[in-house]
């Protein structure tokens, strides 16, 4: 079963709220959430109400019984059945109230995650340049979990406390309003417990920080293991590990002391409240049955009070999570000042792209004819890759569809098929094209024992492939993308000259590449000779030379020098 949107819609999900949820502020968002899933919450509150009515019935029933025992009352009819019915009611309504509270929170979590991911996917990377992968992960993974806990758990307990108070207070008032004072020890113990937990929270945080240090030490030791072994310094590292571990556990111990001191307090408070209640009952001339009645109430109040302290923790985590989520979402939707600048740095005419790109201290003015192959050359470190990236930013700003393969492209931990189609529907024609491209790029060899090449899993960031294979797979991906402009950073470094010639020749002839503009970087003369237009970059002068297939002057010298220095190229 998949939770399709139609299925979710039947549960209350409102499609018209699509991608508006995260735009709201906290409270309006929360209110919108309640309205979106209102009948879940209606049911939830109704169940809570019934539940508490049933639960408060218990002390009353017990009082009746004790009255009988004291000889002052009538035996109620079918008492056993009454208790069993109450038990059944508690089972049903407690379960219902929890489920009805939890489920919409889970829906909300899923919906928000999807919305956030869609937003992230749409936004140009410049907008979230300040966020590293770890932080993005934290928002998408941890923060939405914390928000869910807030909506599902903290609100359930809040509802619980409110309904409990709403039901219990009038009934106890009816019985004996003097008894309220006796709740003081219990209330105080819960308060002290919460304060203790909060006060010791700083040690819990310190313990977490220290844990981070221990973790870093492990990571560093891992990276340095060869060096450490070379100098036989293992013991130093083990000792340091111990030291940090003790530090962490020291904080951990301190943080648990708060809990150890506070938690048993609640039982003490409960006991003292009972004693105090007994005193009051005695003063008022009540009997044992009154005391039993009071004890029953104490017992009922215990649970909601206990949860108050956890609510505070969950709420503060939820709020912090919302803040981060909100920050990221706002940044994703805010135009980066660079973007409008980029837009002005590209002109598109019917048959050419005109760029003016910042390059070291100068500006490169470039006119690239459409539907041609253009290659950028230059020494290592001259900024070829940067120029390619800058072109990408400008094309994106003008919403021209392009596909770029960077020096070290990222591959998803998925099948080859998923990696080259990226969610596109696999039509028979597309599949045919994909297979022939994989073959052209020498990737058909990956399918060893007659397995289908498209179903091969590439592993985390393509680690089951070699660097060259991963690169070539990305080239295939960009060719299949239907982008108008193809940007390739040093595409043929892992391909020998013969295969390179074959690939370029076939691509130029294929219908797949007709009308597309190719912009590549390269350090090989052979590549330059296959392209229509070429450019030599130099940090000092900008464009040092332009050329076509026949190179002359400085451009030719550049390659001749290279061949002397490194005959293998």
């Amino acid at each position, binding site marked *: 079963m*998949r939770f399709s949107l139609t299925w979710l819609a039947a549960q209350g999900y409102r499609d018209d709220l699509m991608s508006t949820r995260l735009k709201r502020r906290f409270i309006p968002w929360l209110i919108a959430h309640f309205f979106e899933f209102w009948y879940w919450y209606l049911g939830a509150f109704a169940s809570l109400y019934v539940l508490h009515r049933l639960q408060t019935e218990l002390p009353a029933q017990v009082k009746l019984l*004790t009255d009988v*025992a004291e000889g002052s009352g009538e035996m109620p009819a079918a*008492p*056993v059945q009454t*208790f069993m019915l109450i*038990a059944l009611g*508690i*089972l049903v309504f407690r379960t219902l109230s*929890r489920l009805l509270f*939890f489920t919409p929170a*889970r829906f909300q*979590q899923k919906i928000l*995650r*999807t919305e956030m*991911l*869609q937003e992230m*996917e749409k*936004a140009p990377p410049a907008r979230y340049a300040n966020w590293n992968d770890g932080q993005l992960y934290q928002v*998408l993974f941890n923060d939405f979990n914390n928000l869910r806990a807030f909506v599902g758990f903290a609100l359930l307990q809040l509802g619980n406390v409110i309904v409990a108070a709403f039901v219990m207070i009038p009934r106890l008032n009816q019985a004996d309003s003097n008894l309220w004072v006796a709740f003081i020890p219990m209330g105080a113990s819960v308060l002290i417990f919460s304060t203790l937990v909060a006060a010791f929270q700083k040690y819990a945080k310190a313990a977490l920080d220290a844990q981070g240090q221990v973790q870093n030490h492990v990571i*560093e*030791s*891992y990276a*340095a*293991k*060869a060096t*450490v*072994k*070379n100098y*036989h*310094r*293992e013991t130093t590292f*083990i000792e340091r*590990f*111990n030291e940090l*571990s003790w530090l962490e556990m020291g904080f951990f111990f301190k943080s648990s002391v708060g*809990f*150890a001191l506070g*938690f*048993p307090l609640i*039982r*003490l408070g409960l*006991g003292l409240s009972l004693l105090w209640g*007994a005193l009051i009952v005695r003063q008022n001339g009540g009997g044992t049955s009154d005391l*039993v009645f009071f*004890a*029953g109430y104490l017992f009922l109040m215990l649970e909601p009070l206990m949860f108050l302290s956890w609510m505070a923790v969950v709420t503060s985590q939820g709020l912090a999570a919302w803040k981060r989520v909100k920050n990221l979402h706002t940044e994703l939707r805010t135009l980066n000042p660079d973007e409008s600048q980029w837009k002005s740095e590209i002109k598109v005419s019917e048959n050419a792209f005109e760029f003016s790109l910042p390059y070291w201290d100068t500006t490169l003015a470039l006119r690239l004819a459409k539907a041609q192959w253009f290659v950028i050359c230059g020494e290592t470190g001259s900024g070829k890759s940067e120029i390619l990236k800058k072109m990408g930013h400008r094309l*994106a700003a003008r919403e021209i569809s392009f596909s*770029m*393969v*960077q020096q070290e492209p990222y591959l*998803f931990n998925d099948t080859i098929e*998923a990696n080259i189609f990226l*969610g596109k529907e696999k039509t028979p024609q597309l599949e045919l094209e994909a297979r022939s491209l994989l073959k052209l790029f020498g990737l058909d060899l990956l399918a060893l024992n007659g397995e289908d090449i498209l179903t091969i899993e590439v592993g985390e960031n393509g680690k089951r492939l070699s660097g*060259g294979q991963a690169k070539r797979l990305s080239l295939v*991906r960009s060719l299949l*993308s239907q*982008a108008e402009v193809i*940007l390739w950073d040093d595409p043929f470094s*892992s391909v020998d000259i013969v295969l390179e010639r074959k690939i370029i020749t076939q691509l130029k002839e294929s219908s797949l590449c007709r009308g597309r503009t190719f912009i590549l970087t390269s350090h090989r003369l052979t590549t330059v000779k296959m392209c229509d237009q070429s450019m030599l970059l130099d940090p000092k002068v900008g464009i040092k030379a332009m050329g076509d297939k026949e190179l002359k002057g400085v451009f030719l010298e550049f390659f001749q020098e290279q061949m002397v220095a490194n005959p293998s190229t």
Partner: protein
Amino acid sequence: MVITGAIGLLLPSMTENFYNDFKNGNTAFYYLAGLFVAEYINRVGYQISVYRFVQELLVQTRSKTFGLWMKAPLKVKRKGMEDEFPLGEVLARVMTDSDSVKELVTSGAFAIVIDFIFILSSLIGFLRLNASVGIGLFALEVVACVLLVWGSRKMGVVFTEVRKVTGLLSRVVADVTKGLRELAFTPHAQYASRRGDAVFDDFLKKQLKSNVWDAGYYSAAESLYPILLAAVLVFFPEGQMGRMALLAVLIDLIQKSISPIKEVAGKISSIQRARTGLDRIMDFHQHFAGTKELHRTVLEMKSSMEVKVNHFSYQRADETAFELRDIHFKAQTGELVGIIGMSGCGKSTLLRLLSGQHGSFSGSVLVDGTHELQAQNEQDLGQLCQLVSLVSQDSHVFSSSVEFNIALELNVPGFKEFWVNAQKALPYLGRWGIGPDTLIDVKSLSLGQKQLLSGLRACFLRKPIVLFDEVSSGLDPDLEKALRDLVLIVQRHSLTIIVTHRLETILSATKLLVMKEGRLVDSGVPSELMHSSDLFQEFIEHLKN
């Protein structure tokens, strides 16, 4: 625990007295109040001592795990010396698994003993108060306990599924966020959000399922109270209905014993979780139990070594095959041996081969003319590693103090003197402005500075053979001079082999190895080679330009 038992036993009878007498005098109040306070103190004492114990246990388990891993030798793999386990695995074993024990403490699972004792003493209390009611309630509570524990095991299965899907979610989220910037540079059909959506769905499904269990389970535990009350009525002998206080005590006891019963089940599941963590740690320990440390007798090198590399081939990053063949040479302590050649001739490979980083190869190293180390043999290779220190731009620099980076430990005797001498010999250090206690920010270091630090390390922790892979370009003149001077200092007490591109270094070498396409083409002192080797002349010409 004994005290807990005693308190548990005392409680029912004292409560009965209390309910009987609370109208008549204060004695029962004092007793009961005293008992509550004693119970509090007892619990606090118990919890704190348990935490102490766990703290010790955890540090020791962790340290043992880390220690075993740290001491375990690196394995020779295709790409050189590597650790047997990926980093994620080591982190998981050392950190995450031991954390499950910590969770045990935070969830209060150690109090399970107290809970059990309390339940038991309540049960005994029931029995003492009234035999027939007691046996009935006793049986019911035991059945309830068993049912809840059984249910928690069923729940464990559901939760394991949730954990699995949470792991999947985490992996997909990490994968997708890492690839986001890539997706922005190529057209796609919402790959990230579609893939995310599928796993979010899966996650939702499993979570909802577990919620049903979760909600039902705790509700079942809560419905125990009225059920037990009904049971009291069923079991209560008609004739004793008048024993008012007895009834009150029973009710009180039921109330008190229910929350431990509820908790026992939850705690058992967290104990089970912790157990799987501990099992994994134990497996890890077991794994190392079989491995022996490499030969520990430290081989000394007093005067010379003779290197024979017969054959070694490997795949380069660009997938072309590369071989080294027939490289034989001999060198003495105190010599400076330079390796030169055009880029791609295999000189850095040779250096890494001698440091053991590439693993085994066909050939041998003869130390002091007597000890022959076979390079195919892992033990021998380990011994070679112990003689050698490699200084390259890949040498590890720690984000720690300068002293730690050089000595690899703190407060080493003699370090202060060493530093003073180093500062005198290398004025660059003064200009750089670092001292023994300066914290190194690895990201801000240049390649040359990294090399200088690891060179100082090789200098301080003397090794008979020091291999330098010189940084080729982009150094400021001061740093370049410092590195050159450092080589001369090292040369005083070690055999120094250096891959170099600098004329000054080449000319000060006592012996040069000229390489081309993986072979040794010429060797000798610079002044001789100047006349005899064409390749050397060509190389020098190239450098001069």
